[in-house]
């Protein structure tokens, strides 16, 4: 660790991983409710559990991004973070706000109060005071990182990262605008939801991935930057008007069906480019970096993002297809693999890279971490398949044959049961990951004679630590 203030990232990563554990545990509970519909129906109604599952995901991913920014910006801009105190205040606001949301929803406090009570807008359910807190924390963060970058070296990575973070914060302001007209409400709602995950978050993802590739493969910065610019251009070109794929059936004019279909079909391009980028960089690499776990997560991230966000997104983005699949389990399949591939894996990649350095355990063996990658990714891919099959059957029975929703849900039971099984694998993988980055202090697997011989005699070979 070159800069002392990079240590801030450690706290952000730890809080993020705690919320990650909460998020996947709630996912498991929800998965069981799909199997047994009355499970916990009095204590934890499905809608509350679902809100906690999605919101804790968003918050921990954001905390991971903030942590990543605090970790990589000092190295990139060759400066200490402008104010560590502000970073701590920002984290405190986020923790307080998150606790506030959980308590308010769990006990249904302040029913109907405009400032303190629940708000029903999907994903933007935070009470108003928490939303204000998020904006204040975001402003503190932006001030802090912008001052750091402005005073230091400006690279393509810092510029794209800041562009993504500023865009993220500004677009959140649409969360405060909630017109009573339902069509307009949805229209602006997507400005936050879509333009986050298919716009600004992609910029953040691409820049963090570029940083990881730079560090892990040692390829020239110039080459990494060229890729980064092409990826970002493709993401913005397709993603902004790609918002149209949410405007098919909400009451907006019919031409959105064509704008949405055409532009969102191209959204697969930046994800393909990110996958190609990651593999080409490793191929051209000139450094055998010891942190194989971080490399595994980086490549896994680019690959699963391409399939989850790119391929599974394209699967139901054309309006002729979406007319039938809209709101079925196909959407759930896409949502799970897209978030896991693109943003969960990215955060776990930067955490895997940074944690050994932040905790002063560099080098150490990360075989448990790598095992958690296969467990989590395997579980997630299996879940995606079960939900895709469930969605296909659902689309046919419900939308083509016209059977009633609940009758169809009954017939999907076997898929939901299998999905629960894959959820168990994901939760075990998540717990293993958290254990692997926080607890072990020594190598778990000793190298055998072949590997020891290579370490001893081949000067170019780096041990997988």
């Amino acid at each position, binding site marked *: 660790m070159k800069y002392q203030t990079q240590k801030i990232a450690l706290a952000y990563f730890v809080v993020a991983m705690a919320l990650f554990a909460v998020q996947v545990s709630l996912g498991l509970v929800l998965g069981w409710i799909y199997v047994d519909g009355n499970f916990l129906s009095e204590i934890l109604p499905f809608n509350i559990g679902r809100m906690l599952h999605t919101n804790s995901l968003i918050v921990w991913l954001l905390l991971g991004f903030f942590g990543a920014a605090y970790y990589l910006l000092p190295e990139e801009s060759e400066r200490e973070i402008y104010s560590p105190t502000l970073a701590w205040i920002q984290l405190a606001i986020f923790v307080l706000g998150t606790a506030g949301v959980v308590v308010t929803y769990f006990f249904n406090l302040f029913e109907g109060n405009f400032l303190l009570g629940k708000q029903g807008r999907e994903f933007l359910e935070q009470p108003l005071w928490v939303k204000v807190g998020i904006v204040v924390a975001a402003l503190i963060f932006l001030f802090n990182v912008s001052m750091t970058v402005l005073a230091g070296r400006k690279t393509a990575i810092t510029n794209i990262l800041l562009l993504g973070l500023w865009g993220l914060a500004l677009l959140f302001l649409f969360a405060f605008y909630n017109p009573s007209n339902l069509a307009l409400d949805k229209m602006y709602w997507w400005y936050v939801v879509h333009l986050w995950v298919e716009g600004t978050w992609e910029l953040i993802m691409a820049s963090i991935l570029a940083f990881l590739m730079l560090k892990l493969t040692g390829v*020239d910065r110039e080459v990494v930057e060229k890729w980064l610019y*092409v990826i970002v251009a493709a993401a913005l070109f397709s993603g902004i008007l790609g918002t149209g794929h949410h405007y098919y059936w909400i009451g907006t004019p019919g*031409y959105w069906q064509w*704008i949405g279909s*055409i532009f969102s079909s*191209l959204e697969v*391009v930046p994800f393909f480019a990110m996958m190609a980028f990651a593999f080409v960089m490793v191929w051209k690499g000139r450094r055998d970096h010891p942190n194989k776990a971080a490399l595994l997560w980086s490549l896994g991230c680019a690959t699963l993002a391409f399939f989850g966000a790119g391929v599974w997104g394209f699967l139901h983005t054309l309006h002729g297809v979406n007319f039938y699949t809209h709101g079925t389990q196909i959407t759930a399949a896409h949502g799970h693999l897209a978030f896991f591939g693109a943003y969960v894996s990215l955060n776990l990649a930067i955490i895997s890279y940074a944690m050994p350095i932040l905790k002063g355990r560099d080098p150490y063996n990360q075989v448990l971490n790598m095992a958690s990658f296969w467990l989590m990714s395997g579980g997630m891919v299996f879940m995606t398949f079960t939900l895709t099959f469930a969605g296909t059957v659902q689309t046919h029975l419900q939308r083509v044959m016209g059977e009633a929703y609940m009758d169809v849900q009954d017939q999907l039971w076997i898929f939901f049961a299998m999905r629960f099984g894959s959820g168990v694998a994901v939760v075990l993988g998540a717990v293993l990951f958290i254990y692997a980055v926080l607890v072990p202090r020594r190598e778990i697997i000793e190298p055998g004679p072949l590997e020891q011989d290579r370490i001893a005699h081949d000067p170019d070979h780096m041990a997988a630590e």
Partner: protein
Amino acid sequence: MDEARTPFDDLPGDLMIWVLIVSELLVFGAGLAAFLAVRLTDPAGFAAAQDHLHRAGAGFNTLVLVTSGWLAALGARAVEVGHIARARWQLAAAAALGLVFLAIKGVEYADKAAQGIGVETHPFFTFYYLITGFHAAHVAAGVLVLLLVALRGRPREVEAGAAFWHMVDLVWVLVFPVIYLLR
């Protein structure tokens, strides 16, 4: 260590302008393909709707845009050999013809509006407005780009601006026969 030269290094202008050009061609190509696909479902309706268009006006606009592209190419060549002043005149003339194109397009849209034809009137007009509207927006952007690169007078930038302008030109040459002429 020297990276091997790639074909990308020999592109005129800048790699990023070519990323944009390829993206634009994909979008307009997909738009025209979708137009042709939907046309298959209602050939008579599409033909009847097409009769409301100004074929002569659009044909004249084709001449305007192709001439403008030729002037932009001359400008790019002039700035390369250091004739900045001449290049500026040629690029400004190219931009002016872009404005002529937009004026004629404006008359066309006004006439449609006067006939009560809107974007939802018929699927033909949905595509007509989407595709020619997107194209016109690119003409307007291209005019600004041409003026900007003319003002700065740097060969690499003029090349990039001219390449963008040729893309706008090319798209129109594809849009014109498919939407206005094809029976």
